[in-house]
């Protein structure tokens, strides 16, 4: 057992812990921000009592979730019932570790380290895989709580996620074709050319739009929030969930938002790259965070403005429009790449 190994292990664990905490904080404040922004969009005030302007609201919510009574439906399939939220939150959190949130920086005692927790050759595939596993959380939750609304929600969720995973993956292939690697760090480094402005969105506008749409669908957000359509099925798959388990689902949804925003940033908006990144590598995380926050705001904005799809509209849109367009985008990119124009 050499010390470097131990040190790297420790470092990784700390990094993961830090990342999770940061992400969870951001998520908490995303919730707050969402409520405030929605309130503004709808001409209300929103929560502004707890703390200054409601800054402590998330903690109040957390406290409420913890302290609430656990209600377990009698007829539910217990094991799966408890497994589902854990699956959801785990699969939501796992992809976080592969995103590079900054260029290589120099630290005291530690020397040069790249600001990424884990670097895979197949980072992108890793993300996609974990995301695809994330379906089970919702589907099992809907099935296990033995409630027709939940079952509906679960079925809808699995159908929707299966359908939109295709277009999501295909929309990313354009980027992969251009960068020639599945390694997220590699993709970002390629985009840091042109003084950090060689972003893939310039070459992949169609792919970006497709990705955005299907990402919203993947995270079950408005206008694709059919699995938890309040007006149709009480609360969809988590109708029967209360207290902390509900909190887990709740967090999972927002963490998913966060992760898909990270992916969009990394693949299309150049990740941490931006102007003056060579001179000031520490700008990287802030660029990264800024872009992510832009996406989060976009989410909230869309939620505040758009109505919900009908289910058949959803399916037709996904299969008959989004998928063909994504395939055409791939063909176009491949052709251009073949002639070396991009």
């Amino acid at each position, binding site marked *: 057992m050499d010390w470097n190994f131990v040190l790297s292990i420790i470092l990784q664990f700390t990094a993961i812990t830090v990342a999770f905490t940061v992400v969870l904080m951001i998520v908490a404040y995303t919730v707050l921000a969402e409520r405030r922004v929605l309130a503004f969009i709808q001409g209300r005030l929103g929560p502004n009592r707890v703390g200054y302007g409601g800054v402590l609201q998330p903690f109040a919510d957390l406290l409420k979730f913890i302290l609430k009574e656990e209600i377990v439906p009698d007829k539910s*399939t217990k*094991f*799966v019932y408890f*497994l589902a939220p854990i699956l959801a939150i785990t699969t939501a959190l796992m992809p976080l570790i592969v995103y590079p949130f900054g260029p290589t920086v120099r630290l005291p005692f530690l020397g040069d380290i790249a600001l990424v927790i884990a670097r*895979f*050759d*197949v980072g992108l*595939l*890793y993300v*996609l*895989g*974990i*995301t*695809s*596993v994330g*379906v*089970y959380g919702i*589907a*099992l939750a*809907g*099935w296990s709580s033995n409630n027709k609304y939940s*079952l509906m929600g*679960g*079925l809808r969720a*699995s*159908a929707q*996620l*299966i359908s939109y*995973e295709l277009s999501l993956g295909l929309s990313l292939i354009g980027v992969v074709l251009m960068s020639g*690697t*599945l390694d997220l760090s590699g993709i970002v480094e390629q985009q840091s050319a042109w003084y950090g402005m060689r972003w893939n969105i310039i070459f992949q506008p169609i792919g970006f739009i497709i990705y955005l749409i299907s990402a919203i669908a993947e995270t079950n957000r408005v206008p694709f929030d059919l699995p938890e359509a309040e007006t149709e099925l009480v609360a969809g798959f988590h109708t029967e969930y209360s207290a902390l388990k509900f909190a887990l689902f709740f967090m999972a949804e927002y963490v998913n938002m966060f992760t898909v925003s990270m992916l969009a940033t990394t693949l299309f908006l150049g990740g941490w790259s931006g102007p003056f990144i060579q001179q000031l590598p520490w700008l990287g995380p802030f660029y990264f965070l800024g872009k992510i926050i832009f996406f989060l705001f976009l989410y909230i904005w869309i939620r505040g403005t758009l109505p919900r799809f009908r289910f058949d509209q959803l399916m037709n849109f996904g299969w008959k429009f989004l998928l063909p367009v994504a395939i055409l985008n791939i063909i176009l990119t491949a052709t251009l790449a073949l002639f070396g124009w991009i």
Partner: protein
Amino acid sequence: MSAILFILFAGLAIGCAVSMIVQRNPLYSAISLIGVFISLACIYVTLAAPFIAAVQVIVYAGAIMVLVVFVIMLLNVEEEERPAFRLRYLVPTAILFAALLAAEASFVIFTVQTSPYQQAHPSASANPSEVGLTASIGRGLFTQYLLPFEITSLLLLMAIVGAMTLARRASFLSPNVRVVPGAQVLTRQTVDPRAVGDATAIETDSTIEAERLLGLENAPHAKDRD
């Protein structure tokens, strides 16, 4: 270190597999199978095949099993009931065959293990290989194994079409096939299912006319035809 990982994941895989066949609820079996897949993916990672690992998760855990779970939820099947009496014998047979199979496998492996030329194979001293990486797999896939690759894509296409055909509510061929109009000879059983094996020829222009000839307008199937 890697040995520990292997033992961990192998144990996990075997445990999940056993629970898969022990469980009576198909959904539990499905969940256990997902466990098997994921632990196998981890083993692939330890085998320095990250690409295959990722594809394993995406394809098996992410696509196939999602479909299975979806179907289970859709059909909402109950737990298996006890096996019928006449097929009891299958369980011991299965155990016996399993034992035989395991014996043969162990024999083969043991023979290989104990062979004097054990150390001959190349991997004894080699740096972490490139074979598992995406680039090499893609290269192999698009150069040496291009034909199988294309055939596989064709297979997928056929699978899509087949799945759609199977899932259609109405099959392509309408339940009561009509005889094309135009002078022809129909056997009696063609027009009247009750008269099976009665091949007396009736000269008609169409099935309807044949029925009229036979006085079968009020035959039970004559009404629900078209």
